[in-house]
């Protein structure tokens, strides 16, 4: 019987590993390679702090410029961007908090794969939006100096917007032409989710 051969091999493996001893963390490298989600937690915490600072500063800015359409819109956009930073980071932290190593295997693997896929999509979204966000930031910076740059130099703001569109176009073209590591990460995250779905027969866990 073929399976008996496998079992005989497994029994031999079992016999051999019984002679080994678990050793402590003698190699620093072993500790370094683990805790894959730890940098994520730090990064997201920092993102929440920055998002909070941006939301507060931009909120206060647009509130003070309710009568000036240009700074008002710029302030609102930055305010929304700050809130989006907080929400995205908070979601990641919640997903990461549920990803403990002693969770059932399929549940944890699925959480990690979902988290990774979400992180990548979120990174791309912030990348695309980031192409434009420096325009309201310029408006904001001038506004802090007491200058409504939209009213005073509309062509300047228009030029910056045009540059942002060109940046976005270049970003999209490059991301289509070049196979970035990020693209590979998306594929791997999808493959992992597919593997879990195949393993569970597509059913719920």
């Amino acid at each position, binding site marked *: *019987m073929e399976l008996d051969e*496998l079992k005989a*091999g*497994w029994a031999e*493996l*079992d016999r051999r590993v019984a002679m*080994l001893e678990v050793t402590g963390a003698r190699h620093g490298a072993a500790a370094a390679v683990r805790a894959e989600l730890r940098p994520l937690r730090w990064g997201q915490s920092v993102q929440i702090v920055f998002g909070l600072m941006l939301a507060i500063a931009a909120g206060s800015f647009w509130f003070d410029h309710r009568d000036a359409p240009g700074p008002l819109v710029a302030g609102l956009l930055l305010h929304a961007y700050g809130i989006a930073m907080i929400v995205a980071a908070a979601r990641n932290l919640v997903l990461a908090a549920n990803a403990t*190593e002693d969770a059932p295997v399929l549940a944890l693997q699925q959480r990690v794969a979902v988290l990774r896929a979400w992180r990548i999509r979120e990174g791309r979204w912030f990348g695309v939006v980031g192409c434009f966000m420096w325009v309201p930031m310029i408006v904001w910076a001038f506004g802090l100096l007491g200058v409504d740059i939209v009213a005073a130099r509309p062509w300047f703001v228009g030029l910056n917007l045009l540059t942002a569109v060109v940046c976005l176009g270049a970003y999209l073209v490059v991301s289509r032409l070049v196979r970035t590591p990020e693209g590979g990460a998306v594929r791997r995250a999808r493959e992992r989710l597919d593997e879990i779905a195949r393993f569970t027969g597509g059913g719920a866990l």
Partner: protein
Amino acid sequence: MADEERRRRCDALLHEHRRIVFKVAAVYARNAADRQDLAQDIALQVWRSFASYDAGRPFSTWLYRVALNVGLSHARREREKPAMLGADLLDAMEGGTPIAEPDERLAALARAIDALEPLERALALLYLDEVPYAEIAGVLGLSETNVGTRIARLKQRLRRQMTGTAPDEETTHGTR
């Protein structure tokens, strides 16, 4: 004092169940050095997570979860499909002392498991370790019925691999 007691208890349980650690490392590591690192990684994670272990439940179930999750993370980091076991499968202990001649049974086992996806390897490990279905369900997070179905499919697949039978042929002739 409580921490010291807990650490001692963890060490004792880990020693008692160390074979689980090494077998998971053997299934997911690429070579001897990688296997050693993975076993240490698993031990580290066990020590770190031991506070969450509920002493009222079997330690083996908890250890299988932690070890398999670390093993799967390791396989993910490696990105490429990990070359399991290999011809040198535990033929040398730490430090390179030979403990046995290369074994054909181990080579056959390595080939069979190497062809499985990482999650299937986890199931194969639990099946070959003769872990009860209820415990496998607890480790993987599946229902017992689902475990039975998956294991039946896994056994078919392993038989096919061992015999080199195509899936269609097997359907025609039935399973052994």
